[in-house]
């Protein structure tokens, strides 16, 4: 048997796990092999050196552990929909940007005017800007109750959704089928997002004031930044 095998045996032996039979054959090998004998000497030294890293003893904070295993009351993050608002808000605004770009692409004239965003198809003007409207609602209606704000937000979201659908219907005959498909894809995504936001709005009505304000600020911030982005895009 080769030395490689016996080196493994030496390690097992040094940790006192070698069986009697194997021990005998190891001893016989060590009688004849200087390299393996030296290996064992080195191993003993290494084991002693390893022992110089002494054990530490720091009792665990059992109270902290007990706290950690208790079923927690829902954390702020779990209760407040703010973080979900953040992601959905970004998604919704992204869709808003894409939708507006799509509208511009299929021939709807979009202009940023003093009152906000204006959509124009031929002579017909739709003087409504949903994102702007939402920001305005959030800023101006601070005295309204949370439930009212939520309702207004829901209404605004519905309206925006409808508007886009109206424009789609109006332009459908004049645009090609491919564009319609793209737009329908956007629209179904948007419907899903709106539904999620709507569910969040329901919960928001029951939130504490601090949570509500937090969420409101987050949403305001998202909308404001996206409105300015849309503004840039349109220029």
């Amino acid at each position, binding site marked *: 048997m080769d030395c490689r095998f016996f080196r493994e045996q030496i390690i097992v032996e040094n940790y006192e796990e070698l069986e009697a039979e194997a021990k005998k054959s190891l001893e016989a090998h060590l009688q004849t092999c200087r390299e393996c004998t030296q290996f064992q000497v080195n191993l003993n030294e290494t084991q002693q050196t390893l022992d110089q890293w002494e054990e530490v003893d720091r009792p665990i904070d059992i109270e902290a*552990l007990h706290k950690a*295993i208790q079923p927690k009351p829902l954390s702020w993050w779990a209760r407040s929909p703010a973080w979900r608002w953040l992601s959905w808000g970004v998604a919704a605004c992204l869709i808003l940007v894409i939708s507006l770009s799509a509208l511009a692409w299929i021939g709807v004239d979009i202009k940023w005017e003093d009152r906000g965003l204006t959509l124009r198809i031929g002579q017909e003007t739709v003087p409504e800007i949903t994102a702007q409207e939402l920001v305005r609602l959030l800023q101006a209606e601070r005295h309204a109750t949370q439930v009212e704000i939520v309702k207004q937000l829901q209404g605004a979201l519905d309206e925006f959704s409808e508007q886009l659908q109206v424009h789609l219907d109006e332009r459908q005959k004049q645009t090609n089928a491919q564009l319609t498909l793209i737009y329908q894809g956007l629209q179904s995504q948007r419907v899903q997002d709106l539904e999620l936001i709507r569910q969040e709005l329901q919960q928001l009505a029951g939130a504490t004031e601090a949570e509500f304000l937090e969420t409101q600020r987050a949403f305001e911030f998202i909308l404001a930044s996206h409105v300015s982005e849309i503004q840039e895009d349109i220029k």
Partner: protein
Amino acid sequence: MEKSDEALMLQLQTGDLLSFDTLVKRWEKPLLNYCYRMVNDLPLAEDLRQEVFLRIYKSAKTYRPTAQFSTWMYRIATNLCLDTLTKQQRRKEMPIDTYLDSESEGFDERLIDPSNPPHAVVIRKETESRVRSALACLPEDQRVVITLRHYNGMKFHEIAAIVERPISTVKSRMTAGMERLSRMLSKQE
């Protein structure tokens, strides 16, 4: 008579928190030292220990007494430590000298007492520092095996169960790791 770990786990499954506390008391020190030797960072090791106990508590229901408790516990700890190390990627990015610089700590004042002259303390701390660096330089699979066998007194067949590898693999990792440590620790002398 002391209850076995396995019996305590069965009691924990019925919602007995006291049995959990007993397990924590019994294993807090070996577990801390295991994590410490794996990640070479004491505050991090304390966090990992806490997390291991949390996981034990949370998955108590899935525990089957066919498995030895310590094997189960060390498997959870090993996976957690390895995950943490993967995230940190410390060993691969830090050469040994950097490791020594960043990890060597000031001497513990409490260790200096009249019966223990300062130079002995200094030498011991230096050796400890070398051991820590050498272990940190080992491939993780070797470090797991060496730490469990040398410091935590687990038998080779138990380590095989912890790392879910054949005992022959465990022994060859141990051999390769010890040879490497011998070289590293003697070279620095």
